[in-house]
């Protein structure tokens, strides 16, 4: 009978939270392109990963090595979280009060799990900086860090494998935006990250 109307109906109304992508610092650092999905003011913003996937949210686990409090009127915290491949720059301001309080309490160094939204900034010299606006940050143990490295390596390789196969619109966009980046580089990075885990 009227099959088409119902299949659509099942999709509608169900809110889908944006998944948190697993990405190594070395890949996030290469991002140059972000875009909005839709015209609306509230449409989500995505950072396009060079391996061809959009990310509105990321999940990372690493070592918080440094944090600084900045600002007089509007206090905000900046921090550096290190993974086996590089450094994530994180920040939490007064629009993320819960995250800011969590970050304020953590003593460096510590293993931390961070859920946040990636953003790109262009520095005065024209180069780009990817930073993560923290939604939530908690202290975790080394096991969780190691699990994350496996998880991030797996997802990175999944993306690299998909890149060479059937191109999705996001993969095509990545090829256009990052013409000089060969994603097989990220497989090498994943290997190096995995190799750093001592058993």
């Amino acid at each position: 009978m009227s099959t088409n109307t119902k299949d659509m109906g099942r999709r509608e109304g169900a809110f889908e939270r944006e998944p948190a992508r697993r990405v190594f610092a070395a890949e996030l650092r290469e991002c140059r392109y972000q875009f909005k999905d839709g015209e609306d003011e509230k449409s989500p913003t995505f950072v396009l990963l060079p391996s061809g996937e959009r990310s509105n949210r990321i999940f990372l686990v690493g070592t918080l090595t440094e944090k600084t409090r900045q600002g007089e009127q509007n206090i905000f915290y900046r921090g550096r979280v290190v993974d086996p491949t590089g450094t994530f720059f994180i920040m939490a301001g007064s629009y993320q009060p819960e995250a800011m309080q969590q970050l304020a309490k953590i003593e460096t160094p510590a293993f931390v799990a961070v859920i946040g939204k990636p953003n790109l900034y262009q520095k005065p010299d024209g180069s780009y900086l990817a930073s993560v606006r923290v939604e939530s940050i908690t202290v975790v143990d080394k096991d969780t860090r190691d699990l994350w490295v496996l998880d991030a390596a797996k997802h990175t390789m999944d993306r690299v494998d998909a890149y060479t196969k059937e191109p999705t619109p996001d993969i095509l966009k990545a090829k256009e935006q990052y013409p000089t980046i060969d994603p097989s580089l990220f497989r090498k990075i994943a290997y190096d990250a995995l190799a750093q885990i001592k058993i």
Partner: protein
Amino acid sequence: MDFSEAANRISRKFAKGGQTPDVKKIEGKLRRLVDEFGVQPSEAERSVTNELAKEFNLPAPGSGGSAGGGGKGGGTEEKKIADGVPGEWVTIEGKIVALSNPPSPSIAQSGVIADDSGAMRFVVWAKSNAPAMAEGSWYRIESAVVDEFKGVANLKIHSGTTIKEISEDRSLIPSPVPIKDLHPGIDSVRAKFIQEWDASHERMLQSGLLGDETGTIKFVIWKEPGKEKLVPGAVYNLFYAQVDEFNGRLSLNLNTATILQEEGEIEVSGGEVAVTGAIVHIAPGSGIIKCCPVEGCNRALSRQNYCPVHEIQPKFIYDLRIKGWLDDGEKTHNILIQRDVVESLTGISLAQAQEIAENNPLGMDEVFLQMRDTVLGRYITCHGREIDNRLLVNKCDKVVFNSGDHTALLNRAGGAPS
């Protein structure tokens, strides 16, 4: 073309509704269309029927633009029920498998009609003066209109429809549809009654969850004379149940269904799933909560001990739960973790949580914070049942580092040419 025969056929259709179209005039119109304008005879018959329908203020046939028309009898085509498409005039033969109480005085009869291809809801308008049909009998229904009501095909019997009882005595055995493949309309399922819910409305006789090997679905039976409750745990064949859709979710209305209990057993998959990922958010309302003590209510109370139904409840009961999001990197799952699983996951028992809630200056918030700090950002595997896009977790394991996985990933990363 035999014009007088076609003209008679058309006029009979309208005579049923108490109209007396001029047969000679119809014949003249047909002749003119065919002879003068070279119109296909079937198309001519259709257009004259349409014109008359408009004149007598009957539902416009073929508004959906059925191209078929068909060479043989008149503007309607004999169809199987499953082939009825909204907007078409049809002639069908089927068995009345259910009659339900007409929801409005302008409706004389409503129910479900079936043939071996499928089933459809039907409505007989009071104005149509159609003869009453009996449940269990077979009828030939000519020139009815398939319409769409709430997104579901529906057979409308109006004053231009001819109903004839026919002597068929086949028993129809509808084939059950797997729950995951159900669509709005009329379908049959074979399912097990796995969970009984409290009736949320006084007109509701029973509601709960049915499951088969492919999934689960909510069902409801409304109070009506002769309706009986299902027995929890039993397996049923439910013929001609109405599949409704609300907010993108399906549910079964069993009032139209023929319900047969059987001896068999069904291994309910129940959407039992396991998801591994990281907990990326703990929602407010997690931790220790106060619940309404009224029998069968158990709703969470506000900070002021206020139940949305039973108002202020000073003698609340404490409970533990975690609401949040579990993320595997591709999809985020809404999870709800029950008390015993919360206890084993966080290492905080209900008694300890209560002690914290009553003695710590932050009260219940302190429990939330402690639980958040032990759970957030951790990798866990949640087992449970997914209902309405929420995973109800009945078992949960922390993921431990597996050196086998590590080696496999190293091989995968190193094995490819770089």
